[in-house]
């Protein structure tokens, strides 16, 4: 692809690689990572990504707080996590190097933009001496590249001003890494043309920088080899690369069609859930109404109002917002209307670590309401699973006329993976009948409507929406008489209603899949997971098996009620290990429910589990 004379480098084959692009917030690392991912997807690799943003909108340039990171793992086999430690680090400045170096595997590759290693930047990063010179990087394969300068020179001929040229240096870096891992260049060049359409100079500069980087890899004598990762044996079909928030949003879009209902979203912006609001706000042509409320209470209240009005209603938030919605969710429990509450969990307590993932709202989801106020809980296990989890949550909400909690987290929200697109026609019909007719008789034999007369199978009450003639009735948060719905202070009725509400939710266990055991079902140890730990557990279990360790594992997507066979499954294992991004919340639930000595493997530092950590815990449990 170039005219210059090139030396042929040896090509080594790898089965996987984890690359971390790190630079200043303004350096375009997210875009670079995204592009590399797309090019890899086209090559048929399996892949998984994880972006990490600074907490500040624009942290001061050059500081550690301002470092923006994108990790991508590509492989020729089926993977489920973005990888533990990176094999390759691209460090665009000293702060990036300083903050990311501790994660890189020993002997890993480090590609450095040496132009950024001036005194000012070193100081800002807190380096007292230059790490390029003081031995800090011993034990790594370091490739120092004066990227800023090379970028500038490669674009000079286009008439790009030096300051503007600098902005293209991420494309230079992308070029180097693309060469190193033998990625095709066309998709990226096409993309540049599309993305910057109309800005000819920008296109030219970025393309020139990208090619210069690619050629630098080919030409410069510093690289010993370049690498190839064969395409993975992925099931055939059409794939897209999707992150959890997008998949969840699309799942919500899908439910409108599957339920044949208009979708309503009441929301208030909060990290890391806001992107669901953003994505759905763009989908007005799907008939989706989004309402940015004055706060979370109003967001949930408006969703409840829309649900009562016959829409398929959602409210999306993160922990602090969920705390505010609890009273309204309690009302939804009492009214028994369908409503899906999405909690994209983040680090706490209080404001905590808003941009870091955690999965510590499970017990709040379960118990965070006054009195006995049971609701079903569904949790997504991977970015693309967010799509199906949204459908499942809506299915339960509609069928059982109940608020449903749908748990995601900041890790799922932002990390992405290839997704074999489902056939949209194969998605389940989740539509339900609304009430249209009186369902009872009064003493005089006149037809009457009994709003709390339940379906004997599901215990769901009729969904009688305003606008339906003949079904006028009143509901409210006071205790209701069964089945008239009239206010009742009668002790026996209250006890009965408490039982009915509990039985309705418990009964959903009959309507959800049994929990499946993976790995070696006859092992002594069961690893029980939920939520975003799926990838790390799955990978760890495979690695354990490779090392001859017997381990079974199971993953819960329904946290309330539990699958009906869970107690029986747990009773089969001597040891149960529960990895969680909290201090042992699921383990408490299963201990209380089944009296099994489930041990918590807790991680609460704002960073998702690596498979290595889980592997180590498995090994410890097995005394291996």
């Amino acid at each position, binding site marked *: 692809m170039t005219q210059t004379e090139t030396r042929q480098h040896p090509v080594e084959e790898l089965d996987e690689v984890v690359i971390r692009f790190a630079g200043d917030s303004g350096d375009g690392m997210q875009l670079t990572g995204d592009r590399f991912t797309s090019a890899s997807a086209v090559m048929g690799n399996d892949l998984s990504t994880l972006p990490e943003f600074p907490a500040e909108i624009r942290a001061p340039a050059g500081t550690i707080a301002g470092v923006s990171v994108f990790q991508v793992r590509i492989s020729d086999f089926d993977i489920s996590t973005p990888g533990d430690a990176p094999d390759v680090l691209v460090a665009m400045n000293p702060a990036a190097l300083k903050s990311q170096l501790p994660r890189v595997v020993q002997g890993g590759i480090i590609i450095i933009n040496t132009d950024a290693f001036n005194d000012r930047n070193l100081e800002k990063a807190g380096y007292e001496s230059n790490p390029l010179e003081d031995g800090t990087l011993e034990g790594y394969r370091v490739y120092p590249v004066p990227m800023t300068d090379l970028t500038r020179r490669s674009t000079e001929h286009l008439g790009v001003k030096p300051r503007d040229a600098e902005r293209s240096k991420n494309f230079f870096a992308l070029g180097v890494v693309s060469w190193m891992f033998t990625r095709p260049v066309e998709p990226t060049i096409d993309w540049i043309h599309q993305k910057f359409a109309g800005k000819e100079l920008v296109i030219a500069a970025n393309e020139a920088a990208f090619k210069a980087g690619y050629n630098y890899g080919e030409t410069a004598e510093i690289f010993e080899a370049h690498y190839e990762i064969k395409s993975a044996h*992925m099931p055939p079909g059409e794939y897209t*690369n999707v992150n959890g928030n997008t998949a969840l949003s699309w799942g919500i879009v899908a439910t*409108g069609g599957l339920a044949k209902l208009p979708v309503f979203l009441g929301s208030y912006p909060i990290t890391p859930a806001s992107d669901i609001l953003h994505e759905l706000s763009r989908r007005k042509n799907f008939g989706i109404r989004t309402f940015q409320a004055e706060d979370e209470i*109003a967001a949930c209240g408006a969703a*409840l109002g829309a649900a*009562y009005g016959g829409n398929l209603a959602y409210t999306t938030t993160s922990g602090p917002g969920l705390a505010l919605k609890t009273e309204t969710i309690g009302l939804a429990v009492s009214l028994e209307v369908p409503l899906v509450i999405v909690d994209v969990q983040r680090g706490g307590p209080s404001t905590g670590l808003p941009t870091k993932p955690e999965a510590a709202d499970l017990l709040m989801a379960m118990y965070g309401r006054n009195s006995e106020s049971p609701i079903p809980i569904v949790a997504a296990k991977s970015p693309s699973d967010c799509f199906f989890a949204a459908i499942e949550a809506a299915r339960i909400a509609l069928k059982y006329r109940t608020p449903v909690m749908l748990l995601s987290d900041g890790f799922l929200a932002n990390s992405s993976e290839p997704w074999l697109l489902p056939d*949209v026609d194969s998605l389940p019909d989740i539509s339900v009948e609304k009430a249209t007719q009186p369902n009872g008789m009064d003493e005089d034999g006149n037809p009457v409507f009994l709003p709390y007369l339940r379906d004997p199978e599901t215990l769901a009450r009729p969904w009688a929406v305003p606008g339906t003639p003949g079904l006028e009735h009143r509901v409210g948060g006071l205790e209701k008489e069964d089945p008239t719905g009239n206010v009742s202070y009668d002790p026996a009725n209250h006890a009965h209603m408490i039982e009915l509400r509990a039985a309705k939710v418990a009964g959903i266990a009959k309507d959800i899949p049994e929990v499946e055991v993976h790995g070696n079902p006859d092992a002594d140890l069961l690893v029980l997971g939920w939520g975003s730990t799926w990838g790390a557990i799955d990978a760890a279990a495979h690695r354990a098996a490779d090392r001859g360790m017997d381990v079974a594992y199971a993953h819960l997507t329904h946290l309330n009620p539990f699958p009906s066979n869970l107690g029986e499954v747990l009773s089969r294992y001597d040891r149960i290990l529960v990895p969680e991004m909290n201090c042992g919340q699921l383990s408490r639930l299963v201990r209380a429910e089944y009296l099994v000595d489930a041990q918590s493997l807790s991680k609460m530092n704002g960073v998702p589990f690596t498979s290595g950590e889980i592997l180590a815990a498995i090994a410890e449990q097995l005394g291996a």
Partner: protein
Amino acid sequence: MTDVQTTTRKDWMSDQEVRWCPGCGDYSILAAVQFLLPELGVKRENTVFVSGIGCAARFPYYMNTYGMHSIHGRAPAIATGLALSNPDLDVWVIGGDGDMLSIGGNHLIHAMRRNVRVKILLFNNMIYGLTKGQYSPTSEVGKVTKSSPFGSLDRPFDPVSLALGAEAGFVARTHDMDRKHMMATFRRAWEHDGSALVEIFQNCNVFNDGAWGDLTKKANRANMLIELKHGEPIRFGANDEFGVVIDCDGARVAEVAEVGLDAIAVHDEKAEDPSVAFMLSRLALTPHQPTPIGVFRAADRPEYSQATNQQLLDAQAKLGGGDLAALLRSGGTWTVEG
């Protein structure tokens, strides 16, 4: 409407026994609404009452319509979602001064600025009734109640001023002793295309008896209630001997004989600028001074739920109806061959 239903008051009464204290002003408000709805020719199934918590908030139980007795303060938010979900509904919101102005103050002001078609009836008895007598955000300074045995210190809100400051398009006031005036005022709220707030002076004869008496007792009305009528000079008194004068210091009461009829302000409820309506809301600062009632402001503004729906229609017209399969592919795809 083509198929206007013919209903009578009885059709709008639910089978639930009314549980307010005997003598409570809430009864007459209920009656006014039940008399009005047949006149409006609306349908029971398209009428919804949403309330918070409080004595006033029991209202929906007594209406033979759809109704939701929700949670304290949140009715305007819930009603907003409901109004957005179905354009055919008449959504009424009922609440007390505590429900609407204390815990629910934020939802109220946001409902006002959004101009979503919810009709809010604020039963202002200047007290917390249901919780047995604490002072409310409309109680006068110095009020002795269970929670303020030494007198309250909080300066009260004027609900009309507050709503006008919150960009309300429709604000009105009436009182529980005058069914005709209530009915006329509620009708105006219903006719308004957008959110509407009606403050109703309501007597709580158990915890704050007679609080509005200086204004609403029959004998006092002529001299103490100033009826606002669009396009007419603002006059009151048994013989219309008083009027309201507006100048660059604000609004004040004057004797017509003294200032001349020309000096009396003519009420313009449609004024784009709410400033004059605001002035009128400051005329009386206690329930013991001549106080305007009627429609303070009824200005035309785009209604929120219609605008929301229009955006959906525009998007569909521009982008076509939603195609899920295409959406899933919108981020780019690649194919793995079998």
